[in-house]
């Protein structure tokens, strides 16, 4: 799970998480008592009537401001470690 979640957990974290998750999973197991045959899943909140808006760029002139908080900005780009060895 840690690998899927991209979390480089330390050994001691893995150890304590294992015990905690076991007790949480034992608790949520009670859902299995419920007969849900034929019950439709609620997707989203069930309330939404999504309203779409125009997919328009509205802040192009603020590019530098948008990346100013990035760990490693370069002009209006973001620098990351080499991807292809």
């Amino acid at each position: 799970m840690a690998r899927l979640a991209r979390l480089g957990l330390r050994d001691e974290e893995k150890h304590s998480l294992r015990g905690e998750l076991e007790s949480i999973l034992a608790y949520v197991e009670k859902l299995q008592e419920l007969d849900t045959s034929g019950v439709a899943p609620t997707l989203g909140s069930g309330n939404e009537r999504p309203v779409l808006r125009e997919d328009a760029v509205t802040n192009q002139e603020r590019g530098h401001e948008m990346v100013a908080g990035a760990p490693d900005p370069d002009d209006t780009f973001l620098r990351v470690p080499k991807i292809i060895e």
Partner: protein
Amino acid sequence: MNLHDASTFTVAGARRSLDAREFSATELTRALLDRISRVEGNLHALLAVTGERALADATRADQRIAQGESAPLLGVPIVLKDIFATRGIRTTCASRILENFVPPYDADATRRLAEAGAVLIGKANMDEFAMGSSNENSAYGACRNPWGLDRVPGGSSGGSAVAVAAGEALASLGTDTGGSIRLPAAFTGVCGMKPTYGRVSRYGVIAYASSLDQVGPFARTVEDLAMVLGIIAGHDPKDSTSAVVDVPDYHASLTGDIRGLKLGLPRQYFEGGLSEDVERAVREALEVLRARGAELVDIDLPHTPYAVATYYLIATAEASSNLGRYDGVRYGHRTDKVTNLLEMYRETRVEGFGPEVKRRIILGTYALSAGYYDAYYRKALQARTLIRQDFEEAYKLCDAIITPTAPQTAFRLGEKASDPLSMYLSDVFTNSANLAGIPGLVIPCGFDTKKLPIGLQILAPSFAEATALRAGDAYQKDTDWHLQAPDLPGGLK
């Protein structure tokens, strides 16, 4: 409103005093900044005090007042949970991973409050990424309950609640995903409301669980909540889940007339585990409402026992996805130990997230993973349908539902910190409203034998906030629990 007595700190009272020129917005702001400097050392309700911004806002408000303008929040000092983006003001979500994050834009709620003339006086402490029921999961230290400094204020919006309870601000905003406004309101003796899902825009609100998160206000009175909700509610084109539903005049709905209003009592909320003091206070509150003409009816919400399990599966699944964005690329912390891209993600995240956030990401990843998806996530989505249907059936019999907010009053700091499951169970009476998308109001209804506040929860059908507010306001016309303030260290009232 008396500047030296927090029990008189109401938005409505401040507005009357400002309009009558009893004091200026600048004087009010300075008085609160002074209080903050005296009480924060004990409470830690705020992660940032925005003094300069507050005084600039107050000056502008005073100019508008001088021109004869009168508006519901004009010149009123408020606090925002540190989950709301504030342009140019650091927004951490109480996480190390956003320690240096300065948003380049305002949340919709931030913008609406600023345009209404509210004075931003600080950013409130909270559980990291709104994950917690005690405010102990803040990466910057716990917040304390002013009614007992050894007690938690509830979470996750603990700082927002304490800021109002201790008179650091007249109102505040929080967010509520599973009870994060209502539990702190109950534990600190203030009013709080989680509106209907979609009632308030979440644009610029850092996401935790997107099918559950909702923005809402804290204040000392229901009338004040109505004033704040009227400003922040309404459709926002930048949040496609914000509803296109007219915003009623909430303030006008506070008629005091609840004759014939049918209030449902779900038997499942009064069975087992409820402390004697909480049950007594809730029963007494019901008598007050009945004396005003409300009718009490017994109802059933049979799937209540499954709400916590359903909530924690859905919320963590959504969180595991939402928090994927913290990867050290676009904003926030990046590890120094960069070797390759994958290592950068793994190290950035393990360094930046606290223990509860990691726990929920792992649980959510598990619930969504191949082989467990049907047993956990899909099952929880089906249980959610059953919980929603419980409320649909119940609202055929009543106009609103009355319950306790939590089985107990505020617990001690550290009491549940080492047992995540017992912490999750603090939300047993609040999770259902988020799963059903309905609004919930919490108002103070008494104290336990240790003089810790007790909160009454009033749940209404979707978009019927006005019904809950009318009932809560009617109750406050006959009681004064909401006008009691804790004695603060240093002899402050």
